């Protein structure tokens, strides 16, 4: 609805006002005349009409404001669904800061209020309002276009959109701070957005991210126990994983694994190996290590090397895992990353090197702010054999 209205107003703020006006009008009209057969279309039409009115009235004033750059409408353009795709690419333009991209997407595509977006990112409402205003100003003044990029630029631009949605998902999947491990609302938004994107743009990269979200989120119910304690993959009750999501994710992974698979497709393939394994011990860890090797070639990130080292530890023993982990200690990007000392501590514990394990758990605790994860680490620490 907003996407279709932007097409008329060429101004994000005005489009938002018109959508709100349309809802207000619906309240009174539908009360009197009953709810129309297609409420969505009714609202979109009302919102676009409102926009046309305002523009006619303010023609001279508006001529002075920078308008969104857009191509002339196609002949058979009914406002759907291309407009939503245009809006995605405008909101997730790489010239905007990633957090602004996510905020704009939540605000304009998911229809969250500024207060809701602020809560999602745990910042104050004025801070978020300023962030969104800055991003809208940049769109207007730098002439970020309201357009689906051409084929040549599309892969790079899809990556930016997927990165924004993935950030939203990760923020929900393991909340960086706070008392809840998972923020269901954010995970749900990320899933909805990816589904929408896939319906508009059925490409392997998009299917890879959708598969990754589905397969990762299928474990949601089992990631904490009844008392809210963190359960690692190892201790999760696999019978309670969401089998529908797993089936959908597995089907998608097959399509997403092209000869040159993207980053999310490879991560999804790793999640698929876990989803299909009867237990943690019976997981095909060599396959997991192989997939991490492919992922490293695609995305040489220290965090991927850390995860690979953990898989090596499962495939070839704790000592091999520790050896794979050791060179990462000098990695500046991981200096404040709590999962590195936590993984080290786990290998050391399995090797019976309890003193060193204790030091590593303590280090991990210093670097972890999520209280569910903190409690897990504290319990592991106190369970260590006395020396």
């Amino acid at each position: 609805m907003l996407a279709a209205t932007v097409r008329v107003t060429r101004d994000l703020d005005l489009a938002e006002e018109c959508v709100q006006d349309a809802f207000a009008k619906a309240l009174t009209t539908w009360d009197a005349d009953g709810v129309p057969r297609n409420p969505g279309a009714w609202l979109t039409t009302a919102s676009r009409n409102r926009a046309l009115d305002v523009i006619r009235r303010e023609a001279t004033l508006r001529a002075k404001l920078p308008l969104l750059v857009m191509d002339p409408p196609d002949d058979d353009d009914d406002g759907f669904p291309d407009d939503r795709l245009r809006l995605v690419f405008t909101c997730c333009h790489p010239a905007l800061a990633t957090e602004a991209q996510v905020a704009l997407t939540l605000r304009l595509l998911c229809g969250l209020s500024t207060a809701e977006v602020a809560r999602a990112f745990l910042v104050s409402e004025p801070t978020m309002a300023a962030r969104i205003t800055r991003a809208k100003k940049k769109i207007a003044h730098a002439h970020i276009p309201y357009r689906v990029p051409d084929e040549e630029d599309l892969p790079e631009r899809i990556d930016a959109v997927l990165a924004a949605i993935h950030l939203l998902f990760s923020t929900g999947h393991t909340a960086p701070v706070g008392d809840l491990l998972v923020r269901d609302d954010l995970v749900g938004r990320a899933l909805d957005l990816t589904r929408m994107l896939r319906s508009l743009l059925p490409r392997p990269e998009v299917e890879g991210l959708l598969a990754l979200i589905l397969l990762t989120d299928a474990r949601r119910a089992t990631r904490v126990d009844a008392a809210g304690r963190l359960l690692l993959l190892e201790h999760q009750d696999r019978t309670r994983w969401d089998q529908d999501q797993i089936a959908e994710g597995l089907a998608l992974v097959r399509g997403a694994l092209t000869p040159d698979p993207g980053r999310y497709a490879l991560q999804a393939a790793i999640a698929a190996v876990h989803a299909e394994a009867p237990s943690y011990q019976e997981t095909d860890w060599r396959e997991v290590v192989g997939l991490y090797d492919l992922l490293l070639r695609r995305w040489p990130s220290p965090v991927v090397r850390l995860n690979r080292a953990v898989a090596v530890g499962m495939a070839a023993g704790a000592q091999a895992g520790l050896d794979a982990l050791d060179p990462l200690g000098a990695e500046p990007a991981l200096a404040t990353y709590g999962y590195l000392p936590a993984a080290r501590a786990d290998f050391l514990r399995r090797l019976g090197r309890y003193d060193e394990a204790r030091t590593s758990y303590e280090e991990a605790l210093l670097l972890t702010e999520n209280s569910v994860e903190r409690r897990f680490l504290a319990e592991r620490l106190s369970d260590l054999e006395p020396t």
Partner: protein
Amino acid sequence: MSQYLVLIYGDPSYEAGDSDDVMKGHMKFGENHGAVIAGGNALQPTGTATSIRPDGDGFTVTDGPFLETKEALGGYYLVEAADLDAAIKVAKDIPMPGGGVEIRPVVVFD
């Protein structure tokens, strides 16, 4: 059409004319994008820069660039483009040895 100023930043030790490859790159850029280039120049190295700041009722004139940065402004183009995406596409063809470019939309005063 909008105008964008594309500022070219790079290693301050690099001087215009230092490298034939870079000069050839600029020639080629000029040939390929001549229609949308509204202006542009290479600048003498930052060692030649002079900064002026108001100082009460007078001015302080000092040696050196306004901001000391690792990557120094070495030149610029003024580019005409329909939107930011078009400007980015043009700017990617500018030679950027040891640095990069910054694109800034030019303000239009009515």
